């Protein structure tokens, strides 16, 4: 194993460990607290889509895994090419480990939820693709579940990483334009334009609905097929990685 990979994995070890410790603590606490009654009514606790939590966690770690590693690598004679390769390897390793871990949690959580009736425990697949979930054999289901998580997680890391590399490469001016421009365009200009075009009769369907439909289609929700989502996540992940490399290739250490 290259020293850089060892270094980066070592860097990831603590946050991942903390993440699962907190996760387990919350789970045990809630499993215990379900027996307590408030005002005569038993509380019901839902753990729905634990993958979503992991995805956010990995997106944030993706955001945090560029600058420090880039500086440390360059100081120690590691090339950008090696840094990128290490990033890919690390992404694959972390996503794989967490996919398996989350899958194990899903199984254990499901068993515990079976015993404690007021506890609900379900994965993203179960919620997003109920039909597929109830129709497949356990083996196929587990496999789909693992692949689904894996591509989802790699995508989350890849997006986070891309955003930081992109911000690192931007000049102060562009940084400001982007940080203001994107939310304004997305949440003000676009809805306004959408409404304008629709009320003027130029488009027969809201752009937002079209986007919504597109999202439903590419995540396989409309067809009930999680493999379509896997493909979509994979494409996004590949795109993000490719763009990250183009930006990293010429990244420099600014003097001050």
């Amino acid at each position, binding site marked *: 194993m290259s020293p850089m990979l060892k270094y980066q994995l070592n860097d990831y070890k603590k946050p991942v460990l903390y993440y699962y410790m907190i996760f387990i603590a919350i789970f045990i606490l809630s499993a215990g607290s379900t027996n307590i009654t408030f005002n005569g009514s038993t509380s019901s606790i839902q753990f729905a889509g634990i993958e979503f939590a992991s995805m956010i966690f990995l997106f944030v770690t993706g955001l945090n895994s560029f600058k*420090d590693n880039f500086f440390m690598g360059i100081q120690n004679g590691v*090339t950008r090419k090696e840094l990128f390769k290490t990033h890919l390897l690390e992404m694959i390793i972390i996503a794989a480990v967490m996919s398996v871990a989350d899958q194990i949690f899903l199984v254990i959580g499901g068993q515990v939820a079976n015993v404690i009736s007021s506890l609900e425990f379900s994965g993203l697949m179960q919620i997003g693709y109920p039909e597929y979930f109830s129709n497949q054999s356990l083996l196929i289901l587990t496999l789909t579940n693992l692949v689904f998580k894996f591509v989802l997680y790699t995508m989350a890391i890849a997006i986070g990483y891309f955003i930081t590399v992109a911000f690192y490469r931007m000049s102060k001016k562009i940084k400001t334009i982007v940080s203001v421009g994107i939310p304004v365009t997305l949440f003000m200009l676009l809805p306004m334009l959408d409404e304008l075009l629709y009320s003027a009769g130029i488009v027969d369907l809201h752009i937002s609905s079209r986007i919504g439909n597109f999202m439903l289609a590419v995540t396989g929700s409309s067809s009930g097929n999680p493999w379509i989502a896997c493909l979509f996540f994979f494409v996004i992940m590949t795109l993000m990685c490719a763009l990250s490399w183009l930006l990293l290739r010429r990244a420099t250490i600014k003097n001050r």
Partner: protein
Amino acid sequence: MKIELKDVSKKFQDTQALNKVNLNFEEEKIYGLLGRNGAGKSTILNIIANRQWASDGQVFIDGQSAWENSQAQKKVYLMSEKCMYPGSMKGEKALKWSAAFYPEFDLDYAKFLADAFELNLNKKVSSLSTGYSSIFKLIVALSVNTPFVFFDEPVLGLDANHRELFYQKLIEKYSEKPFTVVISTHLIEEISQIIEEIIIIDHGKIIFNESCEELLQRGYTVSGPINIVDRLVAGLNRIGSDQLGGLKTVTILGEQNFSDLPKGIEIGKLDLQKLFIKITSNKGVNNDHESNA
């Protein structure tokens, strides 16, 4: 084994930081890379160490292209003003990781140096004062054992005792196991006896690149009454002059061959610091600016 820079240029937006720089860093020599702030010293080092890329030209380390070449990069270490370690990393950890990246890194020596400089390795590197941050980076650079080690402003924030200790340890290390040392600084006086080769850079161009001893022997000062001095140095390569009342001192670069010195004229030794100030100040060189005044 050497480092070669061939026609290296660097442009930042609208400023030309380096202009066709040609340089060699030979094996086992101590170089002083001198220049004023913003002259391009750091840019040269940053390009060699892959922190920045050259807009034009090429850098070779031991015959291999330096850019994005891990094999070549393993032969150089750059200690820079900028702290490259993560904010939460402690000194001890940073040393440990340096040892993981550089197989020749001498961890015991690094700890010995930390002791000598009274550096607390349990502190986060990023929380160290300017002086101790420099010290930490110096310790890594002195322990890394790569064939080329670059020091960019190594004594920034160090007190006189620590500066002396650094120069001593550097010489000790170098004389026990020679390596190529490049010290980039504007504190010339302190390193003038240590460096073998001197490179002076001004506005992105190399204006001097020769042995320190030769340069010192080539330069001298002539001082005395204005009219006699002026007559004596007419036609010589003047690089600067000072005037105090009727007394004038002119700094000359070139062979010293006065057959007989007129009364009241004194020949003095060239001071590296003074030479540096003279040749890098923006005043015209060799212009008869005094006649225009």
